[in-house]
């Protein structure tokens, strides 16, 4: 249609789409799904890290971790707001999260078993997230792009803090080094999975790229992540759990083993180590908090009625 053509022309010209602009239904729906899923990931992502707040080994680490988890809740807030500009409310999206109609990043279905996991999440998981998110600062939808700018800035702090934890552990006692290596072993492949399966031939992907909702292919980002991360692991003196890993001079990047995509799809289906726990925790927070939310909104209604009566 001419409208669609005009819309595509604006995108091609590098213009930002804003909430009141006309947009194709597919663009709107895809964005709601993508931004909503990203928001949910921030929210659910509080849980594996929150798991160690009460056990952080020093006051400073505790404060840093608290601040990080708080940032994630803040990111969730920006992102829900961005999605709401597209016409879906936060509560609707939350319902869809709880009943399984919307997803969150599968990485958060893995448990945090030692303090080193908090380091690994910052280093690897936030590292992968940044890799995904940096290009999205140039995404075509204005509110989303602006949210990404704020988020990327904070995420890079988080990544550095995570790497610092890993450094302390990798250069610490034998027990600490063992935990650090074990964390890398457990989080390496799930981190690679964060970019999703190869999408070279996906039609869906092509449309999203045309719309500038997606900027790079999954494989490009994954390669970039590996190339960035392997030297960091070497610097820590840790071993990436991939015997096939080696530098490929020709392509100027590492060759590496694919993660087990079967595991990826199993986790997606709900068979990850913590799927039930994560959604269970969010459901419990939602249910237990109903009286609280109801109380606040009843008060707001009363206040409004009082104001109106006073006029």
């Amino acid at each position, binding site marked *: 249609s001419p409208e669609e053509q005009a819309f595509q022309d604006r995108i091609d010209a590098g213009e930002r789409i804003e909430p009141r602009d006309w947009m194709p239904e597919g663009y709107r729906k895809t964005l709601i799904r993508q931004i909503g899923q990203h928001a949910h990931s921030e929210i659910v992502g509080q849980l594996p890290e929150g798991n160690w*707040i*009460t056990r952080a080994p020093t006051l400073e680490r505790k404060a840093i971790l608290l601040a990080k*988890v708080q940032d994630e809740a803040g990111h969730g807030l920006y992102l829900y707001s961005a999605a709401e500009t597209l016409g879906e409310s936060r509560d609707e999206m939350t319902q869809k999260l709880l009943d399984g109609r919307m997803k969150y990043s599968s990485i958060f279905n893995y448990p945090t078993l030692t303090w080193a996991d908090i380091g690994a999440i910052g280093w690897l998981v936030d590292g992968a997230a940044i890799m995904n998110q940096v290009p999205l600062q140039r995404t075509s939808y204005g509110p989303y792009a602006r949210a990404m700018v704020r988020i990327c800035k904070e995420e890079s702090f988080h990544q550095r803090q995570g790497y610092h934890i890993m450094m302390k552990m990798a250069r610490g006692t034998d027990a600490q080094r063992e935990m650090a290596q074990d964390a890398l072993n457990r989080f390496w492949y799930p981190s690679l999975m964060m970019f999703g399966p190869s999408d070279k031939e996906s039609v869906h992907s092509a449309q999203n790229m045309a719309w500038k909702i997606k900027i790079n292919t999954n494989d490009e980002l994954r390669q970039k992540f590996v190339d960035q991360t392997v030297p960091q692991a070497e610097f820590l003196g840790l071993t990436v759990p991939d015997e096939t890993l080696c530098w490929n001079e020709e392509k100027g990047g590492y060759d590496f083993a694919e993660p087990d995509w079967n595991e990826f799809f199993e986790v997606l289906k709900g068979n990850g180590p913590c799927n039930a726990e994560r959604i269970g925790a969010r459901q419990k927070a939602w249910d237990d908090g109903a009286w609280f939310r109801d109380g606040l909104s009843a008060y707001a209604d009363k206040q409004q009625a009082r104001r109106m009566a006073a006029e």
Partner: protein
Amino acid sequence: MTQTADVTASALDEALVQWLLRIGDTSLILGHRVSEWCGHAPVLEEDIALANTALDLIGHTQMWLGLAGQIEGKGRDADALVYRRDAMHYRNLKLVELPNDDMAITVMRLFLFDVFHQALIEGLTQSKDPRIAEIAAKALKEVTYHLERSSDLVVRLGDGTQQSHDRMQAALEHLWPYCGEMFWSDAVDETLADAGLAPHPDRLREGWLATVQDILTEATLKAPEGRLDVHLGGKVGRHTEHLGFLLAEMQFLQRAYPDADW
């Protein structure tokens, strides 16, 4: 004469260390309880606000216990004090170690404590010990904000639905008998008050009662009739059964890996 002055100074320091443990431990344990909500709050804004409160309280802990360790002079820093003392050596108020149970308890406890805390910190900005006054000055804006926020929530939830009202009233009844410990005093408090280092706890009671009463009235809640001072002892190391479990969790890494650096 000099010797007497020295003895006095050392007695004052001893009282000061105890007093700093009390305020520092109270911040720490309340911060710990609040931090347990991370990711589990009823609404995203609360996740953020509670994390923020916990952060402030952990920050105060670092300052108070850092100073305690410094004055004690046995080479213990704030982390050593936090991670290597068992329950009987903790000096926090019992009020702050009770489990969160639900958000009504959490909000009501914050409110009841914040009223006291804000007045205390404000008083401490006038301390004759510049180290105390400085910490208080840094903390004042935060604790004032805490009080604003928790009073506001008490009003909104107390005057919300019947259920939210009832839960807030039940929380108030539950916590009331623990509140008296905030105003309980012993020689430590006397010493600090006499030296002009800290307000006497007893002097904070009346203001507390007045503010609490105002907010409760606005919240359509009723102050309990029972005694405020049923549950004392935290300030001298006699706690509830809850603290031991909290510390076992909090201190695990430092206890299990005593040689590690984090």
